[in-house]
């Protein structure tokens, strides 16, 4: 999936063997976003020409030249990751340090609106007829449950939003909050479109 880290466009993906990697979201061949690519076994393949990259970021296969062993110079730029509390943390500068927030991740998605607009939409999008209560520290009380919204700028004017909930919420409740995420996204994008 596509993610925003420190203003950079990043692709985060999981190989069949469970390994997770985060790279610059750009195929070194023709600049195509690797987040549109497809996972084949333990490689990520670019959608444009099908070049395969292994978990170290190195290109392992070029379909246009099936016999060729691709030179080591062809590789995606790799970033450091850390998995903590069910969340994947990425650093584009140095070693990633995750934080266990003690919350359960619900959804991560991209909203075509700035962070301010997203935060305002989190505060104004009602659930079950009640407007959320702003708790500070990116936390909101939504219909009785505490939700946290982690925001990262992405692209020209977008925000990657990761919503976490209190742990151990029943599935039905998580589904309700997932639908609230959709409503919040619509509110933010409508506001940004004005």
């Amino acid at each position, binding site marked *: 999936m596509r993610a925003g880290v420190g203003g950079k466009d990043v692709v985060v993906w999981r190989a069949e063997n469970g390994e997770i990697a985060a790279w610059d979201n750009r195929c070194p061949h023709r600049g195509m976003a690797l987040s549109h690519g497809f996972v084949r076994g333990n490689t990520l393949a670019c959608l*444009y*020409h*099908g070049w395969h990259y292994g978990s170290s970021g190195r290109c392992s296969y070029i*379909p246009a*030249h099936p016999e060729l062993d691709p030179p080591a110079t062809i590789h995606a730029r790799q970033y450091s990751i850390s998995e903590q509390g069910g969340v994947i943390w990425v650093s584009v500068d140095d070693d990633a340090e995750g934080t266990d927030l003690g919350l359960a991740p619900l959804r991560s998605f991209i909203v075509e609106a700035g962070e301010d607009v997203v935060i305002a939409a989190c505060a104004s999008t009602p659930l079950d007829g009640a407007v959320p209560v702003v708790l500070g520290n990116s936390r909101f009380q939504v219909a009785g449950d505490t939700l946290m919204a982690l925001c990262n700028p992405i692209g020209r004017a977008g925000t990657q939003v990761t919503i976490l909930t209190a742990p151990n919420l029943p599935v039905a409740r998580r589904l309700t909050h997932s639908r609230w995420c959709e409503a919040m996204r619509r509110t933010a994008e409508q506001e940004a479109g004005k």
Partner: protein
Amino acid sequence: MSLEYAKNDWYAVADGAVLERGPYKTQLLGTELTVSGPIDNPTVTDANGKRYPLQHRYSHVWTAIGDSPRPLFDIPEGDEPGRVLVPVGVVRVKCSPLRAVENFLDIAHFPFVHTDILGAEPHTEVVPYKAEIRDDLEEVWATQVKFFQPQASKSAGGGIITEYEYRVPAPTAAVLYKTCPPKPEFKDVIAIFVQPRSEEECDVWPWMALYDETSTYPELVQFQQEIFLQDRSILENQRPIKLPLDPKLEIPTRADMTSIAYRRWLKRRGATYGALTADA
């Protein structure tokens, strides 16, 4: 960027279909234009009412906004009797006009982007072909390009090895000659005329001159539009948006010889509108 260079090329800015709907507002190299009138007698004006020269060729209205435009290139096949001329309409793409042309010159993406139409795994290999800058013509040519295609065109019955030739007669135009299944001695001509709205947005006008006696006009248009819409999903997701001319920024392989020649040719001509150059 070189706006001055780009201003003195001709660009397709309208076809008969858009003009039938009344005056057509568009944008060329950042300038707002209005194309009015029937396709055989149109006018092209800017917001101040200034009129620009125009030509009606290859089913499109062409204009140039510079003071001393270079001659419009010739596509002789457009005048051959027996060919059906098909303007495919317009596809708006948020990408550099040069990236749109480069994608048109690329065959290695067929199995992945035009899956089961222009290519299919495991037939992904690009065998060596010839790409050159023809100094006599000042054009880029690629010849002896061969590729396995499950459904090469609307008139192809099944999978065949298709032979291609590519020609780049201007920085934002490309012509493709390909094996024509019903008449192997002739070649189908498919071109794209790319209208640069800005350095990062273009309108693509595909055009065909075919020997196809069986398909109807809407079928031909639909087939090509499907192909171009698949290309758009790639073109709008390439970064940087502008085409890098420095070979260090994007690593090519032997399959990219046409693209390498094209980038080199653009640099040599100074045709850098839509390109990422060292001084940009």
